[in-house]
């Protein structure tokens, strides 16, 4: 008879850690279900309300179209201005944060910390912070978009810098070129296509968040939307939502087609 002791077992008992995680998750899930007070009766009532909302929203009321268009324009302004500055600031930050371009470990750690703070705090919270610091209106929205873009773009730029081929930058270093010349002469050109794609994603992301920023008073179409909702003018709200949908889809199409052409 052959030695069977080396055969893998059919079943291996999960480790203690797996048990802890599984039980913890189950406990959290059940507690969440209870706390959110889900009942069939509430769901039915919600469905009824939804029908009533849709009933009042159709047909959408476009009489305030000039105001809506103004607000939508403001939203796009916030998004474009914010994302432009965000991408511009992201380049130096990414250079300071990437392993192969950072001047030293201390600077790199600080830059990475700044980027991760920008990323970890959600855009709506940035907007709240800037509404408090610079007041209601589009400037707060722009600043929020800048922070949000930095958290996204600077991270991807720096990751791209780190995976660039070493050869060309080494060749420029070997000619006696300085650090900055090597970065801007070899590493940036090599990353350019990927940076453009990242920047276009940032634009799409910025349009979507600029729409919601108005909800906390940071300017743009969100202000119109929250007003309409609070006045129970669901038909006006529907018109606004339709406009938002149209603009966001148009932007995504545009950016997709540009991206396809570049890559």
């Amino acid at each position, binding site marked *: 008879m052959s030695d069977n002791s080396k055969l893998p077992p059919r079943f291996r008992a999960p480790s203690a850690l797996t048990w802890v995680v599984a039980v913890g998750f189950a406990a959290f899930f059940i507690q969440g279900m209870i706390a959110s007070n889900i009942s069939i009766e509430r769901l039915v009532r919600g469905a009824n309300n939804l029908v009533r909302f849709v009933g009042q929203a159709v047909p959408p009321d476009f009489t305030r179209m000039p105001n809506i268009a103004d607000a939508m324009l403001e939203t796009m302004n916030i998004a474009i201005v914010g994302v432009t500055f965000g991408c511009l600031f992201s380049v130096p930050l990414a250079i300071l944060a990437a392993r192969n371009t950072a001047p030293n470990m201390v600077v790199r750690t600080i830059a990475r910390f700044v980027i991760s703070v920008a990323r970890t705090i959600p855009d709506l919270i940035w907007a709240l912070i800037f509404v408090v610091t610079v007041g209601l209106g589009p400037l707060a929205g722009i600043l929020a978009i800048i922070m949000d873009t930095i958290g996204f773009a600077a991270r991807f730029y720096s990751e791209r810098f780190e995976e660039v081929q070493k050869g*060309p930058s080494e060749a420029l270093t070997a000619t006696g*070129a300085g650090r900055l010349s090597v970065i801007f002469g070899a590493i940036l050109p090599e990353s350019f296509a990927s940076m453009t794609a990242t920047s276009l994603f940032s634009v799409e992301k910025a349009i979507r968040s600029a729409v919601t920023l108005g909800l906390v008073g940071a300017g743009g179409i969100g202000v119109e939307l929250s007003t309409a909702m609070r006045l129970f003018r669901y038909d006006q709200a529907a018109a606004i939502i339709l406009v938002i949908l149209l603009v966001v889809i148009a932007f995504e199409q545009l950016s997709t087609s540009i991206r396809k052409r570049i890559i």
Partner: protein
Amino acid sequence: MTPAIQAEQLRVSYGKLHVLRGISFIIPAGQGVVLLGANGCGKSTLMRSLNGLEKLQSGTIRIHGAALSGASRRELRQIRLGMGYVFQHFNLVPQLNAFQNVLFGSLGRHRFGLLSCLGLTASAADREMAMHCLDRVGMADRAQHRPSELSGGQQQRVAIARMLMQNPTVVIADEPIASLDPKAGREVLDLLWRIVREEKLSMLCTLHQLELAQEYGDRILGMKAGHVEIDAPVAETDTLQLNALYSGMTRVDAQPTEAAA
């Protein structure tokens, strides 16, 4: 006359792996030396340390008398400026055309680096010189092509033009034809050595073909497992001796004593 390259007892390690184990040699100005040795014997490491791309553990390197170790960043750049480097994989910037890549050869010369070397901003003299360099390697008509639109041999020619643009006195060529087919390799090697001879440059060039080494070189430096095994004028070397470089313990990472590490 001070020698072009003077290396004394060079030692370089990557962690526990001793790659250069006490290398000494002298290359007089104007001499063309071929470096031979099996893969993994430390040739690239040696060449990289001559350019300051690799840090020495101990030993000294002097390029035209200027010491590399202990040099400030500015002095190091000054030394690199006088040293052209030709790579096996050409190392052109793929997104930029040949002309721009050649212009980059002058990066080290300019106080404002890149700002004075872009196609848009370069001086008329530099632009003319870059075109002249491309012309010397026979690539003037490909100035606007990107590396991906050129064959391997053509890319290496552009890289040689970049080296010419740098106007160096010493050239280091690390397997310049190892990624090329025999015919293109032959043409590129012809070009490289012709330029080196015409400009009276000193060169250290790695090759893998013994007959080419004997044909082009003035002197042969043979490396085996991190040591210099042969250092002799071409006329005094024989094929048997050179072939021995490629048998037995050639690699620095194949030592039985280090296999356990």
